[in-house]
């Protein structure tokens, strides 16, 4: 857990800025009634007659990616349901929860509600709008097998820790046992998630390496600047791990041997929308396991002066048995206060990564000299919060 404290120190400033930004947005924005885009003037056009998509955009509401089963095929919540969810969340002490003091899972005050600001509940029951049940389609058999093997490996690295001894949720599917010989193994696929081993940078999550940002992103602020032959999208996300995209309205995708973190984006205007196809993704930056065969088709539609509808269809036949589509309504954010954090400089201040590698080497040394526990018996990977911990 030492690593979490280091990281907290390293990124606290960035987080503070992000939280401030979110709070300001929530407080300072004109709220549209019920999340329904309030008519606020017609959708503007550029001088070339295209839909004008420029500005800073944010989905101001909280919506789960996948629809909870209780809503079945229902796309929207009632006003009462939204109010209920807001009340539940604002009163949820779990956002400031501590586990047993002094246990490995307890992090002194890190990542409580101060760090995890909550947006008001949106009108949608899920971001996924297709399939109609709002659920991401089933994984292909080969992807299920790949995930199973991946989880098996990560659980093996945890099997000698208290997390498995106490049958904590992060050890679900695993058992308590002696230190695993698999500590010596190189993972079958390029690692992008946390694991209970810190032999070098590649054992860390992409986030810990300041390389988290990738497409598609459903939470970011984004600044769109539109030129006649290309569109720039600056994305502010993930603790200073934002990125820049350029959507070219000309030319074609590079050869398939060229693999890019954010893919290669080519766009065209269709009626009132900008339609962007992105391919050439890199296996080093997968989205839920999809990379080389991933194609995104995004549709940016300016609905009115203050609303941008964003839709993305995710296709990768090697990962999912069918394509699926997310839809979000984004609101225009004030530009003059210059609040968007457009300089992603996580890497420049990444003391956390060096610190956790130093910590791991010191732990090994102490164990070797008989002055400390076996690192294999220590859980330095999982967290206590729901969704935050455990092998991914």
């Amino acid at each position, binding site marked *: 857990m030492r690593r979490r404290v280091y990281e907290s120190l390293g990124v606290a400033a960035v987080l503070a800025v992000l939280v401030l930004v979110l709070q300001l947005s929530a407080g300072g924005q004109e709220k549209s009634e019920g999340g329904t885009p309030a008519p606020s003037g017609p959708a503007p056009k550029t001088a070339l007659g295209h839909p004008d998509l420029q500005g800073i955009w944010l989905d101001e509401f909280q919506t789960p990616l996948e629809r909870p089963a209780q809503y079945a095929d229902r796309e929207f919540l009632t006003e009462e349901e939204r109010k209920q969810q807001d009340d539940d969340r604002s009163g949820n002490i779990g956002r400031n929860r501590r586990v047993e003091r002094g246990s490995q899972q307890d992090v002194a005050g890190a990542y409580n509600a101060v760090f995890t600001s909550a947006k008001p509940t949106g009108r949608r029951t899920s971001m996924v709008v297709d399939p109609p049940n709002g659920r991401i389609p089933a994984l292909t058999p080969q992807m299920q097998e790949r995930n199973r093997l991946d989880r098996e490996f990560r659980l093996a690295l945890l099997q000698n820790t208290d997390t498995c001894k106490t049958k904590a949720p992060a050890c679900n599917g695993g058992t308590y046992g002696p230190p695993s010989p698999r500590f010596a193994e190189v993972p079958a696929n390029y690692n992008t998630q946390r694991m209970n081993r810190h032999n070098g*940078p590649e054992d860390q999550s992409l986030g810990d*390496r300041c390389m988290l940002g990738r497409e598609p992103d459903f939470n970011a602020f984004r600044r769109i*600047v539109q030129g006649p032959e290309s569109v720039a999208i600056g994305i502010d996300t993930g603790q200073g791990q934002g990125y820049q995209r350029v959507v*070219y309205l000309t030319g074609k995708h590079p050869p398939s041997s060229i693999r890019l*973190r954010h893919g290669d984006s080519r766009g065209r205007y269709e009626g009132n929308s900008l339609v962007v196809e992105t391919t050439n993704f890199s296996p080093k930056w997968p989205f839920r396991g999809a990379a080389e065969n991933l194609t995104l088709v995004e549709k940016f539609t300016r609905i009115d002066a203050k609303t941008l509808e964003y839709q993305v269809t995710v296709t990768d036949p090697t990962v999912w048995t069918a394509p699926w589509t997310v839809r979000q309504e984004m609101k225009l954010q004030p530009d003059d206060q210059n609040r968007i954090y457009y300089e992603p400089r996580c890497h420049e201040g990444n003391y956390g990564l060096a610190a956790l590698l130093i910590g791991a080497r010191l732990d090994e040394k102490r164990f070797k000299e008989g002055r400390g526990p076996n690192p294999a018996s220590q859980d330095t990977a999982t967290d206590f919060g729901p969704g935050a911990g455990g092998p991914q």
Partner: protein
Amino acid sequence: MNVKGSTIVIALVAAAVGALISAAIPRTAGETGGRGRTADGKPNFNGVWQAMNEAHWDLQAHEARPGLVTQPGIYKFDYAKVPAAPVVALGAAAGVPASLGVVTGDGQIPYTPEAAKIRQDNAANWIDRDPELKCYLPGIPRAMYMPYPFAIVQGNDKIHMTYAFSNAGRVIHMNKVEGPPDDTYMGHSVGRWDGDTLVVEVTNFNGKNWFDRAGNFHSESLKLVEQYKPISQDAIQYEATIEDPKTFTRPWTISMPLYRRLEESATVLDYPCIEFSEEFMYGHLRDKPLVTRWEGETMVVEVTRKVPEGDKLHEWYRR
């Protein structure tokens, strides 16, 4: 609808005015039209651009050097240095090309005496100090002339630049915005048009950037005034006047052309250097270092190199 109507009228007038002004931008042969001006009559900088010079090595005039890193040879003369261990295995591919320099006037950078000493130390300790090697955000003006392309997207009230190096970005605000809440690597850029010249003032630097690989540097007091003057539809004369009273005794200026990348599918392909720098930055913290000799935090580079094969002299020598 009135608003919309007047917008159209303004746009039409602007287009007409633009058409008149556009005669001022020299056209190159074979131009198909449309690229020289934007719809609102401004010079059209949209596209992929790149400097084509040696400023990223050293802003000042310099001779070709035998290696990115050199060591004294058998002579004491500077011109007789030889490549040092980190690059000796790369032979003639790892030298530094010569340049007439991009500093205008007398070509000198007017350091204060204290700063001149720091600059010398920087050059002597290039590997340890240059933020480029760590893949830190390159800052302005350095990002403008690194040997990587960058994209300009020219919007209504913002101009966005995306650099291949580290996927760095920059927004030039053509409208009024507040300054950033903190100092920055890439600066806070506010632009305006002065005729056909885009003038950008850049402030709010954190002072952690360098200008080049020769150790030229600035402090957080840096203020830049950049000028982008169209030479043709495919070339921009880029000038940056550098003011930093903590480091320099007077303002000074660099000037160079930027060229449009004319390939049909010109694209800024990212140079994702964060991961490229990990071995350099964290290699000594691995459980089993990949570089064979780390002495504490010092990488001792041992170069294994075979004598070049395939030439008769070496074949004879081997017998």
